[in-house]
């Protein structure tokens, strides 16, 4: 069937291709000046400017990220109603990250290059943030990241409006220590946040006379917790530090209750369960358990009353507000304040203007720390109530200065 001619034709084609490839132009070598590599400039010419909203609207993360998306849209709507930013209306452009990290990188590039956005708001998981970080750095475009995370990061093109570890994990440990709960059992999902958080917890425990009796990880999405709960029960711990994420919490707390464990006998302190999750896990499994965040729907203050009312008016009376939603909401307002202080949408000018920007947020007053591009936030420990909300039982008394690398803590020196 295949004659010699066919083969020769193929070979000729191949060698032509090879030559073509070898002749193609070569770009800059590493280490050389890449200022020309900066991507498409944001478009600020018209009387509207586009802002990118990058959340998972499909896939496993959609259940959490859609609420953040809603909060972002609410903030944009409020800003537009109040006259926009520098006299320009904001036009939100939504892209679906689809709970898939390379998709996040692709859509981030699309927002910057195709939509020419002036800033982007979104991402939830650390993996998605790590995937888009090089995209924003390469294009010198800004991302506002609204979720508490594991710290150890400080990108020049990301603003972090959620808590870093010294505003959530460390205060939670301080609280447990003060309560005399010094023997801990660590349970977490198997990914970067729990593993890093647990490393910090173990280092803290060693320096503060606390004891870690066990450490277990379940794959993301796992619903099999009989073994882990049995180990927790027989370990003799005072408290469980829970960094499980998403659906796994449902299975874990059901198993926990059916093993006869309660908040009174062995309290669980969770750092990834907010109002939205309480609803889906079921209040009967969670009542009395502890959480660590910077904001609750019940946080007092006029700013929060306004936020909750506006959110429920837009998305439904029974919809709770949570910490990541609030952090997303304030991130848009913080960006607006930065742009107005800078008098320009220019990324470098906005960054230069960021230090000391204040906003009367639902969680209380927040201040941007220009050096780390994080936000001063108050830590709050809460207890799940019978009605499914979270009541604050302790707070840090005032905003804590962000310290993503825990440089200001002696015990964290060898982390």
């Amino acid at each position: 069937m295949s004659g010699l001619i066919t083969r020769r034709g193929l070979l000729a084609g191949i060698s032509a291709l090879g030559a073509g490839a070898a002749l193609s132009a070569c770009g800059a070598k590493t280490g050389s000046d890449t200022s020309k590599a900066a991507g498409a400039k944001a478009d600020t010419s018209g009387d509207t400017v586009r802002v990118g909203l990058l959340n998972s609207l499909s896939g496993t993360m959609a259940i959490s990220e859609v609420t953040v998306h809603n909060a972002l849209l609410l903030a944009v709507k409020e800003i537009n109603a109040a006259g926009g930013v520098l006299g320009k209306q904001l036009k939100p452009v939504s892209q679906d990250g689809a709970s898939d990290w390379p998709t996040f990188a692709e859509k981030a590039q699309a927002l910057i290059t195709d939509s020419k956005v002036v800033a982007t708001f979104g991402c939830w998981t650390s993996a998605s943030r790590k995937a888009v970080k090089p995209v924003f750095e390469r294009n010198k475009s800004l991302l506002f990241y609204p979720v508490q995370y594991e710290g150890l990061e400080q990108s020049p093109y990301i603003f972090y409006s959620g808590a870093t570890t010294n505003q959530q994990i460390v205060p939670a440990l301080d609280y447990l220590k003060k309560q005399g709960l010094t023997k801990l059992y660590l349970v977490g999902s198997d990914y970067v946040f729990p593993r890093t958080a647990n490393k910090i917890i173990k280092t803290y425990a060693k320096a503060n006379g606390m004891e870690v009796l066990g450490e277990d990880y379940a794959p993301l999405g796992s619903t099999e917790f009989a073994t882990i709960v049995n180990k927790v029960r027989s370990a003799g711990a005072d408290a469980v530090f829970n960094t499980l994420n998403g659906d796994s919490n449902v299975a874990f707390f059901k198993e926990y209750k059916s093993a006869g464990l309660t908040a009174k006998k062995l309290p669980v302190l969770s750092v990834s369960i907010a109002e939205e999750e309480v609803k889906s896990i079921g209040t009967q499994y969670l009542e009395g358990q502890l959480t660590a965040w910077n904001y609750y729907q019940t946080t007092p203050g006029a700013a929060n009353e306004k936020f909750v009312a506006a959110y429920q008016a837009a998305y439904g009376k029974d919809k709770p507000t949570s910490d990541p939603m609030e952090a997303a909401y304030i991130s848009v307002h913080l960006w607006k304040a930065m742009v107005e202080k800078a008098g320009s949408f220019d990324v470098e000018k906005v960054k230069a203007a960021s230090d000391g920007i204040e906003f009367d947020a639902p969680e209380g007053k927040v201040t941007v720390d220009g050096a780390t591009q994080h936000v001063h936030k108050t830590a709050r420990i809460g207890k799940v109530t019978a009605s499914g909300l979270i009541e604050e039982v302790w707070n840090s008394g005032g905003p804590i200065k962000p310290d993503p690398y825990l440089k200001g803590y002696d015990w964290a020196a060898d982390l």
Partner: protein
Amino acid sequence: MTTTSTPPTAAPATEPPAGPPETPFLGRFLGRFRTPAAFLLGAVLLVGVAPLVLSDFRLGLLAKYLCYGIVAVGVSLAWGRGGLLVLGQGVFFGLGGYAMAMHLKLADAAATGETLPDFMLLYGTEGGLPWWWQPFANPAFALAMTVVLPMAVAALLGALVFRRRVKGAYFAILSQALAAALAIWLVGQQATTGGTNGLTGFQGFFGYDLNDPINQRMVYVVIAVALLLLMAAARQLFVSRYGELLIAVRDSEERVRFLGYNPANVKLVAYVVAAGMAGLAGALFVPAVGIISPALIGIVPSIGFVIGAAVGGRASLVGAVLGAIAVAWAQSTLSDAWPAGWTYLQGLLFVVAVGFLPGGLASLRTVLRRRRTSSDRVGATKGVTT
């Protein structure tokens, strides 16, 4: 077709089947040059036209789709020709990708005067650089490993599996289990593999700055040329004696064994070559997309690798590659407009392709033609294999 019977060896057409040879001389002449002409046209489009008309961003996307196309070349060989339902290509894609990513990470670290990649500095390795990272600092070793490592794993696994005559669903399940196991293992090794985050944030590619759009275009050209070369090589394999033997094993393994061949070896070659192609695709994916992570190599992406080939036509090389590219493109484009619906559509495509159009879109013409003629040629299609 109604007057002459086709010789049995030519049963499955290698390319979209030629029309009935009504004008024998012209038909044969065209037939001879059709493949190289189509190949050259494809080459001109991919290497010549695409970089000129597409923006940096679109070209980057195309580079990603072409990587999936390279995997599809291997899938077409192993599944389309060899009947091996390779549902674990993510393993080989991942091995190739990680081998490349480890080298790029080490090269980036060396460029900034560090001994450890950035994520290891953050998440901590107690004993410095792990021993199994060290050889990847050598570019030649890393490049070789992107292909050798997947092929070695495939050879080992294939030798065990095919000798024991494990096939069909059992082989598919085994492949899937391996993909799941590798993904879970990578997630657990956060300090040395980056865990769920995977490896990301590459600065350079063998001395070239990846942040420079011109170099990104170069990466695209390398990928396009690799795809074309592998398609040419696979085609030669398809039409060789080995290709015929592979189809024979797919259609009747017992008969091939009675003829004195060892079907295990025939299958092993297809499996190992497909693994090498997936490994190379993974390695090229890394500089093009800028990330490799366990989420890219587990069960779901492994199934994704075969869906494109199934939709386009697994037994047809061009069909499989175009199918893979089209499905990847549709995923990017449709998921914007219809976020929650895409997954369902993907599943539906797979079911329809496997259930109603086993030869994929590439066989649509043949199927339609057969349906038209089958009414007056009852039973005549018995010898045609799809």
